[in-house]
């Protein structure tokens, strides 16, 4: 080896170049993390910033005169007879109330009465009517009540609608917004936290200001119950079989391959399955949380099985040997010793599976959960059975609102996403805490 050995203290050109390549490579890695972080931040901030408005709602305080000759011609105060007056009978009363209040407050305007009336939400009329029917003694008095403003007035106070955009909009005008601003200055129009968004049912295309998530949350809750009741025992039982009892044969192999494949089948295929098998073949009801829950159960089952098996695997064989050694049967060793030790892991996996099911949309579209539902579904009814009444689900409601024309629904959709993400965050945090609390190192 007659080689001149260069000093270690001097870096040759090649080493310099190689070190530069090293730094570049490292930078790419950091860049990839940065891109992911940036995407997450942008995603969350845009959703939150465009959806946070849904949690605040603008109300106008009206003092509505409720004349007997219009609302209760018979004078009996019988709600059944009073119900004959439709919302068309109430609408002029609300309009008149606002016009009178404007005059009293000294606000003059060129706006026609019709346009002034349009500043109040169409939902408000129904609200007032229901209130009067529930309290018939109010007829003949003046009712002071907070009602929803129309979506664009609401949008104006949240910055979504501006004077410029209003000038181009056939449904509102800068004049109307000016009036709204003056009413707000005088405290007649107020913006406050919007509980209705979480409790009220969906509303029609014309009234985004009234749309809420009540039915969707209820529907999602029912489906999660179905998934929990079916997927947890099925998943645990299947995992126990595969992990502890399955003989090494073709059938077990086939089941294993099936499970790992099902975990990667596109979710929409499960929707097709639900439509064809549960609805068409099995005769279950469309749009029902029962069918939704069944479809989501089949979809989350592989997730739960995979995590349950991991939890069972992490219980050391010495525990099983100890149980078998004192004369317990295989079944006893599993149910008395292995399963309790694996329980925290199983629970964590189940929560994560539920979270996945809660956010799933595509299969639910196919089994009719996009329907427009305004009635709160009952968990059981004589006609529809258990979880058989039509409902929607949180993520489907988001999709539903994105398909509506009124821009007010974009805010609602983002608001629904925030709600969904809060639920998911709670579930995932619960799973993490559970894991931390019960994590065991063997």
């Amino acid at each position, binding site marked *: 080896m007659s080689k001149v050995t260069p000093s*270690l*203290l001097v*870096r040759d050109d090649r*080493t310099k170049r190689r070190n530069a390549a090293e730094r570049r490579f490292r930078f790419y890695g950091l860049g990839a993390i940065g891109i992911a972080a940036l995407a997450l931040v942008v995603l969350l901030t845009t959703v939150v910033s465009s959806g946070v408005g849904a949690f605040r709602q603008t109300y106008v305080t009206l003092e509505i005169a409720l004349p007997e000759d219009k609302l209760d011609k018979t004078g009996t105060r019988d709600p059944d007879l009073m119900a004959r007056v439709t919302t068309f009978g109430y609408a002029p009363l609300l309009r008149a109330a606002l016009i009178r209040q404007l005059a009293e407050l000294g606000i003059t305007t060129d706006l026609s009465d019709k346009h002034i009336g349009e500043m109040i939400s169409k939902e408000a009329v129904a609200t007032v009517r229901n209130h009067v029917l529930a309290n018939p003694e109010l007829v003949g008095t003046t009712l002071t009540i907070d009602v929803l403003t129309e979506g664009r007035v609401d949008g104006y106070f949240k910055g979504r609608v501006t004077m410029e955009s209003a000038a181009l909009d056939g449904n509102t005008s800068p004049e109307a917004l000016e009036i709204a601003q003056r009413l707000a200055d005088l405290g007649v129009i107020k913006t406050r936290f919007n509980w209705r968004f979480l409790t009220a049912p969906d509303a029609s295309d014309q009234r985004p200001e009234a749309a809420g998530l009540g039915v969707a949350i209820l529907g999602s809750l029912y489906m999660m119950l179905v998934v929990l009741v079916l997927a947890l025992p099925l998943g645990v039982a299947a995992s126990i079989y595969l992990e502890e009892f399955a003989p090494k044969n073709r059938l077990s192999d086939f089941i294993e391959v099936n499970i790992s494949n099902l975990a990667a089948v596109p979710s929409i295929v499960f929707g097709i399955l639900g439509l064809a098998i549960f609805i068409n073949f099995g005769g279950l009801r469309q749009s029902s949380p029962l069918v939704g829950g069944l479809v989501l159960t089949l979809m989350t089952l592989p997730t739960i099985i995979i995590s349950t098996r991991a939890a069972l695997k992490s219980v050391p064989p010495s525990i099983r040997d100890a149980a078998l050694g004192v004369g317990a049967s295989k079944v006893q060793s599993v149910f008395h010793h292995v399963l309790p030790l694996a329980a925290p892991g199983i629970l964590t996996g189940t929560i994560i599976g539920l979270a996945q099911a809660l956010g799933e949309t595509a299969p639910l579209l196919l089994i009719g959960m996009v329907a427009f539902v305004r009635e709160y579904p009952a968990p059981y009814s004589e006609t529809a059975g258990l979880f058989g009444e039509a409902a929607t689900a949180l993520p489907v409601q988001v999709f539903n609102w994105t398909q509506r024309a009124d821009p007010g629904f974009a805010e609602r959709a983002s608001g629904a996403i925030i709600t969904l993400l809060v639920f998911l965050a709670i579930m995932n945090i619960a799973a993490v805490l559970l894991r931390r609390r019960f994590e065991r190192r063997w």
Partner: protein
Amino acid sequence: MKDIQVIESTQTTTRQKISAKNVKVSYGETIAIKDVSVEIAPNTVTAFIGPSGCGKSTFLRCLNRMNDTIDICSVTGDIRLDGENIYDRNVDPVQLRAKVGMVFQKPNPFPKSIFDNVAYGPKIHGLARNKSEMADIVENALRKAALWNEVKDRLENAGTGLSGGQQQRLCIARAIATSPEVLLMDEPCSALDPIATAQIEELIDDLRQNYCVVIVTHSMQQAARVSQKTAFFHLGSLVEYGDTDQIFTAPVDPRTESYITGRIG
């Protein structure tokens, strides 16, 4: 430490290849090596022996800064290769490791062909100008590692397909291919059967012609067979260092004697 005086007298005429002074290594709070000083001569096989966990492998890994890859590991003291401090701020471990090659306990061929395994080092260090030069380097290295005759017809086959002993010789060839000056071997035979071990030991003896070889071994017989100098480590310190014959026949330190005779370790 009394062991240091031993070497002072024996080796003064030849220039030392590696000289380590007061080396300390710690992993976080735990101290792995305390105050080790050693001089390693060129063209000799130096063996580090001692019970497991005595720090001999850790010290070996200091010699080509392999410990740098472990975050919590810190090395203090002075280690010089041909008089240059290898822990100097200006020294790039990449350049250092090209000069100080390493062979590991378990044969670890890359998932590449036999040829590419050997060519890997020369390629990254840019030692060959063209294909035929590379072929020469590879052949040369395989010949020196006594593997050429066994693999010359299947250089394109995967290195992982060889037997354990062949894999280890492939790893030696891979280390030789970058023309290092020092070869560090960390228990190179512990995963091999006796026949493969004998082949590797024979090879180590041959390698002494061109390289300075440092070998860590848990087998005293192996140290006696292949090395000229032996260092005995115990509980993180260097207990005794000297000619292999002397260590095995007339150990100075009682601990060395206990170990050699099988009372500890």
